[in-house]
């Protein structure tokens, strides 16, 4: 009974002022971590622009040439100390109104079946999908391509099966643009897709 009794000189708005120190310390630090860090992140611009001659490391010797001027937000270039893994690859390239994401995944089926798996995992999104087609890179790697458009913008998914005997990864390239912005980036996206080269077959 007396445990609940707060002496009058310690009361504030029905609370015990003696409990404020730990509570407000914890709350303050939590808010800095939860909201302060994202605010700081938002205030810092990207300075990781792709330059002419840069080559993306897709793991296992596979490479691609990123569009000059885009920001490399995730992923590594060839020649750096860090090497990419073809089965856990995550690359993000961004420019105003458009992103290109690359994901490397261990997958044993065909490129077509992989694209089916991706679509199943994401359920039905509103929009209109075009018929599936195929795309062949300059190095002769053939992938399955699916274009679509919806209220959020335009989308292009391309699935490749990279012929590496030990890991047999699948590679998914996802292009997303703001509504009606795809045409602006079509040439860069096409050049990027054509530049994808598989590593040496083992």
């Amino acid at each position: 009974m007396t445990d609940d009794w707060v002496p009058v000189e310690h009361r504030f708005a029905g609370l015990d002022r003696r409990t404020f120190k730990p509570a407000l310390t914890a709350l303050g630090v939590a808010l800095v971590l939860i909201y302060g860090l994202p605010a700081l992140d938002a205030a810092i611009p990207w300075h990781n622009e792709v330059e002419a001659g840069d080559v993306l490391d897709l793991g296992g010797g596979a490479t691609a040439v990123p569009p000059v001027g885009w920001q490399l937000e995730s992923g590594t270039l060839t020649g750096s100390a860090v090497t990419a893994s073809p089965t856990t690859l995550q690359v993000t390239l961004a420019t105003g109104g458009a992103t290109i994401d690359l994901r490397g995944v261990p997958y044993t089926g065909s490129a077509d079946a992989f694209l089916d798996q991706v679509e199943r995992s994401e359920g039905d999104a509103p929009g209109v999908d075009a018929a599936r087609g195929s795309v062949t890179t300059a190095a002769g790697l053939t992938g399955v391509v699916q274009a679509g458009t919806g209220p959020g913008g335009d989308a292009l998914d391309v699935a490749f099966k990279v012929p590496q005997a030990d890991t047999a990864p699948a590679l998914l390239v996802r292009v997303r643009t703001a509504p009606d912005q795809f045409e602006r980036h079509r040439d860069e996206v096409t050049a990027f897709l054509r530049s994808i080269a598989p590593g040496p077959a083992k």
Partner: protein
Amino acid sequence: MNGKAAQLAAIEESGWGVPFRFTQPHNLAFWVYLLGLGGGALAIVRYFGTSGFYAPALTGGVLLFALYLVPWLLLLRRQNRYTAQPGGLLAAGFAWGGVAATFWIALPANTALLEIWAKVGGTAFAGDWAAGLSAPITEEWGKALGLVLLIGLAPRLVRSAYDGFIIGAFIGLGFQVFEDVLYVYNGAAQTFGANQLGTSLQVFLVRGASGVVSHALFSAIFGAGLLWVLGRARGERRVVLGVLTMAMAMAFHFAWDDMTGLGGGGPLTVVLPFAIAAVELVALFAVLRRAARRERSWMRDLLGPEVDAGVVTPALLDAVSGLRKDREKFRKQVHSRRRSRHLLDAAGDLAREISRAGGTETARVAHARAELERLT
């Protein structure tokens, strides 16, 4: 100080026998704790709410890591000796670690900080070092806030570095298990749901094995360090030792998360996990031993009058308030592992009843004493 006075002082200082009351509407720490838990629960619903496609992986992960929890809880229950913490307090710590620290704090904070490192140092630098430069800050502090709030909720119960160690371990365990389930889900999403059960089993094996020297260990060390800095028990304020101990926990977290960067991708990378684990375990036991000093002296003071009265033998007092070697010595003296365990448990029961009774004679104290005499 005579035996009875020392006993009463130990009861007062240790807070042993004080029940833990969770619902405290007058306590601001209670509302901040609820805010954290609510925020975490909301984030869990948002994160997993639309993940019906990944239900097999998620279910497998939850079941596997729920089973994984059992040996951990048994181990920590054994470590919760001396002036043992109430289950409700430890459960509150576990819930903070699992729900609030993981989903309310670490998830948004890590996302932001990982991106900041990539912006500041480039993606190659981030690939090597960002995880280890982020998690020791966001996760260790996120978990430690639970300990700070529990001090606010139970100021008499959370006193010594040993309290920080035990409660920290429970907070860390909560974080570890909930984060592991998150990893299972992310692993399934990374592969777009192909072979979900296989993926969850793989994550379970990898995370389960590395979990032996992971969050529970980091937070136990960090918690002990924090209580040394705060110095809540008489004579226990050791600011430099506390800061160094907290920094050591963060350094271990850094080393564990950035093993690839530290190993440079060479042969060292293979050896490093075992080397780091060995150093971590040695440090853990060193911190535990140092942190238990105050609790052990409280235990001696609590049972001192019972030694004077001939109920507790000096050898039993040494064992119940001592370290592993003292307990082993006692076991050899009584020539029976089972009898030794029963005597230690009975002496612990008596100490607990004396604390609950505030040092007075009650029927339960008399019964606990009679039980000990029956076994002696």
